[in-house]
């Protein structure tokens, strides 16, 4: 995207916050818990000096659950009148200080995702969302605006979170490697 936004940052934040509030209703937390396969989780923290791609090469998802969740995320992103991504982040079972990006979207918009990271350290704003269920706005990197919001399961527990992200001037020319 190279389009220039006509919206003010405040308007953008308002739109993103609205989408995050809708996501809390629309995104199925039970389904999201079944996207990453047990095998992928098993290898996520394994290391082998002879196999630096061990975690990545064993990363796998259940495609029905992935595609269903992604479909919802794309629809949510289309609520915004500007380029916007809704990314799904999930806790890593057994590793309360870690978080994993599970679904990213077409504009590559995220303030948190590090390219090729299978999991990352849990970011404080994400911890806040997971612990309190409150939506949090983040403006840390590259002028981007992200609103983090909870994803709930059928028991009413917080299963994960969405990052609803937009950037007034989106980068269209970063590397694709």
């Amino acid at each position, binding site marked *: 995207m190279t389009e220039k936004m006509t919206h003010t940052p405040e308007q953008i934040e308002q739109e993103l916050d609205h989408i995050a509030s809708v996501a809390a209703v629309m995104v199925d937390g039970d389904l999201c818990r079944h996207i990453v396969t047990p095998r992928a989780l098993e290898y996520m923290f394994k290391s082998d000096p002879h196999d630096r791609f061990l975690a990545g090469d064993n990363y796998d*998802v259940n*495609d029905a659950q992935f595609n269903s969740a*992604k479909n919802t995320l794309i629809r949510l992103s289309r609520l915004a009148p500007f380029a916007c991504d809704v990314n799904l982040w999930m806790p890593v079972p057994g590793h309360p200080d870690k978080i994993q990006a599970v679904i990213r979207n*077409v*504009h590559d918009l995220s303030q948190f995702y590090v390219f*090729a990271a299978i999991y990352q350290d849990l970011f404080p704003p994400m911890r806040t969302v997971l612990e309190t269920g409150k939506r949090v706005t983040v403006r840390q990197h590259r002028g981007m605006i992200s609103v983090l919001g909870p994803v709930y399961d059928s028991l009413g527990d917080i299963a994960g979170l969405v990052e609803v992200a937009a950037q007034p001037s989106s980068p269209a*020319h970063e*590397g694709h*490697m």
Partner: protein
Amino acid sequence: MKPPDKTTSHPSRRTFLQTALGALAAEQALPAFGEAGQNSNGPQARETRLFALPQFLRPDPFGDIVHADRNAAAAGNGFQKGHRLSLECPRGTYASFHLMVQTARPGEYTLDLHLNDRSGKIQTDLYREWFHRLHSGEYYPDALVPVSAPHRSRLPEPDNKIANQSTQAFWVDIWVPADAAPGDYSGRATLQAEGRRRTLELHLKVLPAVIPAEDVVTLDHNSYGDSWIATQFPACVRATSGDFYKSDELFRLIHSYHRIFYENHGIFHQLGYSHTGRVTPEFAPALEGEGRKKRIANWNLYDRHYGPLMDGSAFAHTRRGPKPIPFAYLPINPEWPASWLWWGQPGYEAEFTRIVGEMEQHFRRNGWTQTHLEMFFNHKKRYKGFSWDGDEVRFPKDLRYFHDYGRLLKKALPADTPVRFVFRADVSWDMQQQFRNLNGVVNMWTCSGGLLSWHKGAPKMLRERGDIVWYYGGPPRVTQPSSAITEMVLRAWVWDTMGFLHWLAVSPGKDPWFNFTGGSTTLVYSGERFGLRDPIPSVRLKIQRNTVRELTLLDSFKARHGLEDLKAEATKQFNGSMPDQWWDPRPAFADKPPYDYTNADLNSATARTRKLFSNLDAAAWNRVRQSIMQLARENQ
């Protein structure tokens, strides 16, 4: 494995062997090359002199040969005889060597070079070799800065900033076109320094043999997006008014990258989308609408980018002449042209087939029918964009998506389309199953070199069913012997693949000039540091070019000498091996599903071939070259 008695009983092979060995013996009987050959294992006493080194012996800035090539120094003996350098070259390629300027004391010098050719067809290019400082403190030459003769400078070279530099190397390319007259040509290199003049007489023998224009293997140089161009050409970006990514300057530079690879007998790929499907605007036509109303809104950026490449006009002023690029990625990915939102719904098929159909019409109307347009999926699950691996599939369940896309592509295209759409897959773990499972779906295969090594016969099988097959790896570091890059070219031919792909060939690192990481992701450099608005080549790129040209000449002799015998002799000369040894035995674990073995298993399975090339000497290709020249002389 082919029985040795059958191989050696071929009469033409015996002739080849005898003549090749004879040529080698003659070379070894000659005196050491010039003064440089007398003590090639250590720095020379500093004196003012002009001398030459064969291309496989790369010099350092102190009059010595770089460490990686030093064990082959003896093979350079006789290259220069006194003050005379004799070269031999078939037509349709280059004669290349290092020309060395050494001065006894710091100071100015003038280097001149010319070769007499009344027809003006034979042309000489002179490049200053940049000595890259590695983290280890060593210096290796690689980037080639074009200069004009006469060239005036001083030692130490001011911009290279090497304390006590005594020697400046120049790469000399003598272009011998296919229509040059065979015969003897003479010329001279002269060095003016410290009030004295030194000369090196040049003698070039142009053989009647003409190397076929089409290279026997395609040498591909891959890249991702185009933001790296802005990074490497900041002055060009600053000089651009408005958006650089919509500027003529961007497209000029993209075309310049294509030209530098084309002129050096390679091709260039740029992938125009990310792992989440974000398409860079100049790599795809602009779209508008959704569902059945989705259409191509305009081709402006795409046509400025690809038009001159697909009609060949971007290459109008090259030595090889205008020619459409043979391959290009399409922007197709799971998110383009159809939105993944509609996957599995009628809308996905409608958007995909409508847009791809419009693309086919556009290519056909423009006569862009010579380029293979690749539907290729680069994404991996680990990057969290999609639910299946498009690149290097490991889990067989992902193959169903390939079938789906194969069906969509066929539906989008007229059965009689003259446009060359291909479905390309880059395969590693699961290649054996994919060759079977995707037969008739995928028709262009880019195979991991390591894993392909235990699939002997697979390239031939794929070629016989009409598929395109390459293998991939990466550029060797400059600290490897100069012959390392020739091994990749030779391997492609020995394996019956149609090409080799450097997975990344335009990324020299943050500071290739004074803190070089070795060049394993580049074969070209930005020329901006030297006031140039174009990329510049490298020693490794030139060696690769000369190798593929000479290999093409060798392959042209197969009707007379037999392809398998030519391979056997080439591998023998290269590293004393037989072609069968260039394959690994199929490991027992290959019978298991690919997700049940590991990278460590793969590593152990390729141990034999790795060992075969672990002690490669810099002169490996030179021995093959001498054999080829002997054949060229015999067959003229």
